[in-house]
Structure formats: C-alpha cells, structure tokens
C-alpha cells in the first residue's frame, strides 16, 4: 500500500482551513461582542457543551492543519533522512501534546462546571 499519497493531505489541509476559518469568524464574533468579554461570561461559554466541543474541534483542526503545513515545509527544505525523520517525529509529538493539553484543560473545567 502506498501510505503517503498526496491528495489526502491536500484535501485535509483545505478542509481544516475551512473549519478554522468558520470557527475563527464565529469566535471573533462572540468574543468581541456580548457577555464573554467578562470572566463569568467567557467561563460559562467555554464550559458549556457547545463551547467546549467547539474549542476542542478548533484545536484538533489547528493541530492537523499545522502538521500538514510544517510537514510540507520540512519536505521542501530538509532532505537528509537523519535530520528529517527525527524532526518530523518531534513536531508530531509536540503537536499531539498540545492537543492533549487542551483536552485536559477542557475536561478539568467541564467536569468542574457540570
């Protein structure tokens, strides 16, 4: 099986870009107006089921989108396998850790709020 076809990554990058675009617009609209400018408002929004799910989806899309993006950059500029593979692995691990961190954050506050 050819593991790394090009099309899947390309489509995934466009799809995650669209998701990010929509969530950023939504987020900007709610954060800049309305009650979430205060701590109580923001906390209530972020720990509601809607809010928490959207935040996790946002960071998932961000990590995937960023992963494909840096992967392309590494594929362009860094050719030595001895450098490329550890670097890709390091970036993947960091991105994954960030995502887990966000999930933990949301879980902690979500559990506390419920």
């Amino acid at each position, binding site marked *: 099986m050819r593991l790394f076809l090009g099309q899947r990554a390309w489509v995934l990058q466009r799809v995650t870009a669209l998701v990010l*675009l929509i969530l950023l617009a939504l987020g900007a609209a709610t954060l800049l107006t309305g009650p979430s400018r205060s701590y109580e408002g923001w906390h209530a929004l972020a720990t509601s089921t809607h809010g928490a799910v959207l935040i996790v989806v946002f960071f998932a899309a961000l990590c995937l989108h960023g992963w494909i993006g840096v992967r392309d950059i590494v594929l362009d500029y860094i050719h030595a396998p001895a450098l490329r593979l550890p670097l890709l692995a390091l970036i993947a691990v960091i991105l994954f850790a*960030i995502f887990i961190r966000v999930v933990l954050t949301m879980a902690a506050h979500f559990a506390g709020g419920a």
Partner: protein
Amino acid sequence: MRARSASAPKFMNLSQIRFPVGAIASIGHRVSGVLLLVSLPLLALALDRSLRSESEFEALRDLVSEPWRALLLVILVWAAAHHVLAGVRHLLMDIGVGSRLSQARTSAWAAILAAGIIALAAAVRWLS
C-alpha cells in the same frame, strides 16, 4: 554526464531573482504559518489560564501593557491576518476562482496590503 552534473555549479542566488508579487504573498503565507504554529503552545496556555480564575483572565487582557509583548502581539496579528487572507485566496484559487494571472496578481497585492494595514492598526492601538 551524471558525474559532471554532480559537481556543476548552479545559479541559485535568491537575491538576484526578481520575484513576482504572488511569490511574495506565498512566502509570507509560509512565514506566517510557521509563526502561528510556534505560538500555538502559548495559545493553549492562554486558554488554560483564561479559565482558571478571574484574576488570570484579567491578566491576559493586560498583556499589551509591556511594549515587548505588545510588539510580539502585533507580529502575531500580522501573521494571522496575512495567513487567513492569503489562505482564503488559495482556497478560492484552488476551485478556480481568481486563478487567472491578472486576478491572482491583484489578490496577492490585496492580501499583502490588507494584512499590513491590519498590523499597522494593531500597532497604533497597542504601541502608542
């Protein structure tokens, strides 16, 4: 033939090449993407702190009181603006909207200028 190519010189001096505006928009998209990605840990941290307590939430809003942090934020505002605008340009061009050369030149200029103006507005607001 092969052996000669391996030792042959190449002309590859980027400063001697006249880049079209699309190439500038494109490298800006790449640089801004990396900047955003590098700031991703900070974003996750900010999310965490904003939910912890009222004082931490308020502390985040005070970030721009330090000039060096305000400067970093201005750079990130540029990166976000350029990346999103150039990203939307790419998404449209991918489905054939505005992918003719003349239109692509215009949209590249528009993305570069608009991102610059947005960054300038942020700088005026936070740094003055």
